[in-house]
């Protein structure tokens, strides 16, 4: 085969590959939308589950919102603070490199292992019980490495010239970080945080082991309440429902979960654009 026709064939093969990978996403969206939209109603969204496969998913929606909000409350400040230390203060030595390697490994850690740790350490050893608090803390373990990595990257790409300019005006390092570096890195930091939030929104194994069984009939009233969540609800109904109504509800909950996830992504994008505009790019 001559190089020219090989060029043509390869180009076509690559095009097919990209088409195949890109088509999966809309197919899933349409599939879930088609199967799930029928069940969506005010009642479904505002009532509690009944008799396993009947009723609504209000406690699950609120449970997911609480879990993810609380997880962000723990994970985002801790992750950003770690990223600032790693990017600005940590000496470039073996220890820092190992911490970085460890963070990257943690990002790929199977969530069931994090769930097991949360169960043994938080739920049993610290006696937090299967609860909102235990679930949110465990979820923040999931979120942390993503937040740290993306934030550190964002902080590091802030041009050195900004720091020099600020220091030369008599600012301390910390003043420079707070007033110049962090605002300039904000788009990337937000992306990092919301990447982490996105991970937490859809996480099933961790909440299963640490937060609650999934069919809780009540919105959590305290940090120690067992807390249902959409992914758990979907898992239970998808695997154990015997009726059409049950399967339908799994799809309905999936659609709500997808919309929540899209909401997080879109707000991430909007926040990012807002900051980029403010930075004058």
């Amino acid at each position, binding site marked *: 085969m001559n190089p020219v026709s090989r060029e043509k064939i390869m180009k076509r093969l690559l095009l097919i590959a990209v088409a195949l990978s890109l088509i999966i996403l809309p197919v899933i969206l349409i599939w879930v939308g088609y199967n799930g939209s029928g069940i969506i109603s005010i009642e479904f969204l505002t009532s509690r589950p009944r008799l396993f496969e009947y009723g609504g998913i209000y406690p699950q929606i609120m449970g997911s919102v609480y879990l993810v909000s609380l997880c962000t409350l723990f994970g985002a400040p801790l992750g950003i603070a770690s990223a600032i230390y790693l990017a600005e203060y940590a000496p470039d030595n073996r220890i820092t490199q190992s911490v970085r390697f460890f963070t990257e490994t943690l990002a790929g850690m199977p969530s069931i292992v994090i769930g097991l740790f949360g169960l043994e350490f938080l739920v049993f050893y610290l006696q937090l019980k299967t609860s909102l608090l235990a679930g949110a803390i465990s979820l923040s373990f999931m979120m942390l490495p993503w937040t740290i990595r993306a934030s550190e990257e964002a902080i590091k790409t802030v*041009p050195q*010239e*900004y720091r*020099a*300019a*600020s*220091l*030369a*005006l*008599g*600012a*301390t390092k910390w*003043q420079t970080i707070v*007033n*110049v570096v962090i*605002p*300039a890195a904000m788009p990337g930091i937000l992306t990092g945080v919301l990447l982490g939030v996105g991970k937490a929104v859809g996480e099933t194994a961790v909440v299963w082991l640490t937060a609650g069984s999934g069919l809780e009939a009540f919105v959590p009233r305290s940090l120690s309440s067992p807390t249902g969540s959409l992914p758990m609800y979907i898992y239970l109904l998808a695997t154990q429902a015997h009726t059409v109504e049950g399967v339908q509800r799994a799809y309905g909950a999936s659609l709500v979960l997808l919309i929540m996830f899209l909401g997080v992504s879109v707000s991430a994008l909007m926040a990012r654009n807002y900051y980029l505009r403010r*930075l*004058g*790019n």
Partner: protein
Amino acid sequence: MSYQINEELLRFRPKMAQDKVIFNDFNLWYGEKHALIDINIAVKSNIVTAFMGPSGCGKSSLLRGINRMNDIIPVARSTGEVLIDGKNIMGSGINVYDLRKRVGMVFQRPNPFPMSIYDNIAYAPLLHDVAEEEELDKIVENSLRGAALWDEVKDRLDDSAFSLSGGQQQRLCIARALSINPDIILMDEPCSALDPIATIKIEALMRELKEKYTVVLVTHNLQQAARVSEMTAFMYIGEIIEFGATRDIFENPREELTEKYITGRFG
């Protein structure tokens, strides 16, 4: 090669000015590399002093010795004294942040913060709490006037600093340095990223600034040194080869190395 040394510079004699910054046996190392060797010069007050020389000669390091910006390089260490108004800034008990309030700096590439024009100037006054909110507008205006930028930006102070041209950005950086009212302004090849017209404006500005401030300029552009500086130091591989009135350096160099550099027979 001939140099256009302007009238005012021709009349200047070092005796006419007072010492502002004195280097006494100043040495600087980057790790193993001896970057500045036994520097002993006095930079005079209210004139423009140029440090010139080929790349890597140490001229920027010497400049950063005046506001201790070498401190932020972890492997840098130094010996000797740097006196500003008679006080050793290398000594213990010197607050480096206060020092940098008195010594403004302008960098090689324009580096405004990613903020509005106004916020760029207001940054340092707010940081150091030197201004009440009401005075801030006045400080911004005065600084921009001082950098000959006010008329061009007065109607768009809230625009991003990045909306300015390169030359305007550099003048904004000069205004930013003026905002906390320093006595010394360091300029590290401030025109190397600018076009000729923007360069002329910055050079004219340097001539104005020296009325109120002591200006120290690093340049690899000989013509620029001849155009704007009363005194010139020629540096080579970490040493001051010759330091004196710009006129003498360019018309009557004492050292063979200086003459070779001036006449372009270098290397």
